[in-house]
């Protein structure tokens, strides 16, 4: 097995790998299956943009837990600033065992091009029901996840002025969802790393660093143990780094990385990593900055973009209690406005959020404040256009 993989590694043409695996997929599989069993770059059919008379249509997936209430706040704020966005709300029933709702949600994002989502619950534990969040990302081929972590001066934390950007491979690795029991009592879970996907996300990271004036890219891996899979990922990013001489590139092993993050987070600039490590590291950094309620993440594919709160927590326990921190979802909506090119409105909301947290210090209890969710939203609305 290892020999075969090694042989594959030496193949210089990365493009062929994708073609090879898609050709190998049996014709009986549905599109959805193919995506899950063979994580390859899929050719997406281009659909005209949903922009009419300067207004954009955007899919809104409230998801479970605090999602619906947070979406309510976002709509409130959008209504107030008059953002030229029309939401198409798709509710996904978490108790359903079939994927109809999820498929519909994916279709709406395909035709709108842009979505904003809370965390979607997958209540069913049946093996054949895949995680909806993963299904969504895979189906839309959103291979890069970007989490911009910047400290809010108003939130008291152990470290000040952190400014890290985490870029995570979003569709393969440990999330390939290929598990089987080969003999009784032995489960094997496959971690899939492909050269093509590694290259795409590495290029994304370096391009992102270049465009945003960042200085350094750190590749996070565990290539000392997983020499082939993480080795491929690391090798790809090293190779690509040569194309960007202006940007410093180093690598770090995941365990060390976590330690460094909590001890000296300021050494990091842009961080590039595979799927599971990304999940862990982004939660570590979110914790450093004040918890799940502040940051927002962005999922990018070649054609679609989906915006969501950074840590992907559902927050079922605090749903409906008016204590959830609405800032994460509001930040996601700001990201979305910027992606759509409505910088004017995005800027208005961003300034209001910053003033509310840093100057007025109106915050929910999770980041050391006393205000309720609605208080925070009201404070933000009150600050819009006045700062």
């Amino acid at each position, binding site marked *: 097995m290892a020999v075969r993989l090694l042989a594959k590694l030496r193949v210089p043409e990365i493009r062929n790998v994708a073609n090879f695996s898609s050709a190998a997929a049996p014709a009986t599989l549905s599109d959805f299956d193919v995506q899950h069993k063979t994580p390859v770059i899929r050719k997406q059919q281009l*659909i*005209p*943009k*949903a*922009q*009419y*008379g*300067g*207004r954009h*249509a955007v899919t809104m997936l409230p998801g479970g837990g605090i999602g619906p209430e947070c979406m*309510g*706040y976002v709509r*409130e704020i959008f*209504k*107030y*600033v*008059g953002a*030229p966005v*029309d939401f*198409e709300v798709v509710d996904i029933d978490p108790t359903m065992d079939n994927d109809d709702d999820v498929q*519909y949600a994916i*279709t709406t994002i*395909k*035709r*709108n091009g842009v979505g904003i989502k809370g965390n979607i619950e997958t209540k069913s534990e049946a093996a054949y029901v895949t995680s909806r969040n993963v299904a969504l990302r895979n189906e839309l081929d959103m291979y890069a996840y970007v989490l911009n972590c910047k400290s809010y001066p108003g939130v008291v934390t152990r470290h000040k002025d952190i400014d890290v950007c985490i870029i995570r491979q979003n569709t393969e690795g440990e999330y390939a969802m290929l598990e089987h029991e080969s003999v009784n009592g032995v489960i094997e879970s496959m971690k899939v790393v492909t050269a093509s996907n590694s290259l795409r996300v590495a290029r994304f990271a370096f391009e992102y660093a270049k465009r945003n004036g960042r200085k350094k890219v750190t590749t996070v891996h565990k290539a000392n143990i997983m020499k082939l899979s993480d080795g491929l990922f690391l090798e790809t990013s090293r190779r690509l780094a040569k194309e960007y001489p202006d940007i410093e590139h180093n690598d770090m092993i995941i365990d060390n990385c976590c330690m460094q993050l909590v001890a000296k987070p300021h050494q990091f600039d842009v961080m590039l990593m595979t799927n599971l490590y990304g999940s862990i590291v982004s939660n570590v950094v979110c914790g450093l900055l004040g918890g799940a309620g502040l940051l927002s993440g962005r999922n990018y594919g070649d054609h679609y973009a989906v915006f969501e709160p950074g840590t992907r927590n559902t927050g079922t326990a605090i749903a409906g209690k008016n204590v959830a921190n609405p800032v994460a979802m509001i930040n996601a909506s700001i990201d979305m406005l910027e992606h759509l090119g*409505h910088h*004017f*409105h995005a800027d*208005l909301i961003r300034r209001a959020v910053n003033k509310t947290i840093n100057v007025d210090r109106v915050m929910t209890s999770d980041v050391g404040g006393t205000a309720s969710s*609605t208080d925070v*939203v*009201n404070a933000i*609305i*009150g600050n*819009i*256009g006045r700062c």
Partner: protein
Amino acid sequence: MSLINRTLFRTLVQGTQHVKALHTSSVNAEKNVCYAPISAMQPNANKEGRIKCTLIPGDGVGPELVYAVQEVFKAANIPVDFESFFFSEVNPTLSAPLEDVVNSVAKNKICIKGILATPDFSHTGELQTLNMKLRNALDLYANVVHVKSLPNVKCRHHDVDCIIIREQTEGEYSALEHESVPGVVECLKIITAAKSERIAKFAFDYAVKMGRKKVTAVHKANIMKLGDGLFLRSCEQMAKLYPRIEFEKMIVDNCTMQMVSNPNQFDVMVTPNLYGNIVDNLASGLVGGAGVVAGASYSAECAVFEQGARHIFSGAVGKNIANPTAMLLCSANLLAHVNLHNYSKMIKNAINKVLKDGKVRTKDLGGQSTTKDFTFAVIHSLA
């Protein structure tokens, strides 16, 4: 005098509303949607927080109707400024250059437009009309006409409520005609997959946005198997992306018959250029004529609001008898488009109230009132 009092009073009331709005604190209440800050936040607004809108009065009764809109805006104290252009094909010497108008609309993103008259024979030998030039320059590819029965307007059918979406940059309006041999004229009808898909997607997205259930594609693919066939295929393709919206197709001749016999079966209709024009006018006739149906044209970036059925009504010029309802509805739609929903509702409610009362009716609705009477009645009903 009473009118002045009224306007003055309203201005004061609105002033207090502004102040109130600044201090509202509840999140979920409607009152949160205040007037002044919203308009101040439009990117195309100027310093005083007013929105700029291009205005093309057009030919025929256009200027009179546009004047009615301006009167109502003034009375309601709506923060919209008009950038007016005289634009006309029948009066080429006075007309503003096309580029100026296009630049203005592209800059302001919104425009309200009267109807432009098009002479039957071109003076310059050009085949494209000014209307078509404007549409092509701005890429206003989608025309939306919402045909809706109005209260107390007596018609043969009741509760008609359908949206007709028309592709208006290609098809029969390609302006490609030639005489290959004397006595034989060929007119090219162009259908492209890209534009057909675009209009189909527009129609479905519009249906989703308005919460509609069904989209009907109108075609004549049984005769024009390739051209209309492509249009129809594009619509079918797009329909697959909208599993929760019913899709059906109808041949244009049958469609017109169904429209006059049972118009309530239609919800959203998507049509190529010429069929759309015909169905628009037919449907407008069902609910009271050209004077009561509003429409709009969209490109990706801008929106032009104009009457649904394009008739200049030149017989009524200066007689003060044209019905301003359509133009006022257009202006209300324009306000909703730029997020001034409260003003939009205010104007719509006022129009409905005047129509419901039925005391002030213009000639086309069987009354004797003038354009001005109607406008003032609407102003008096603003609340």
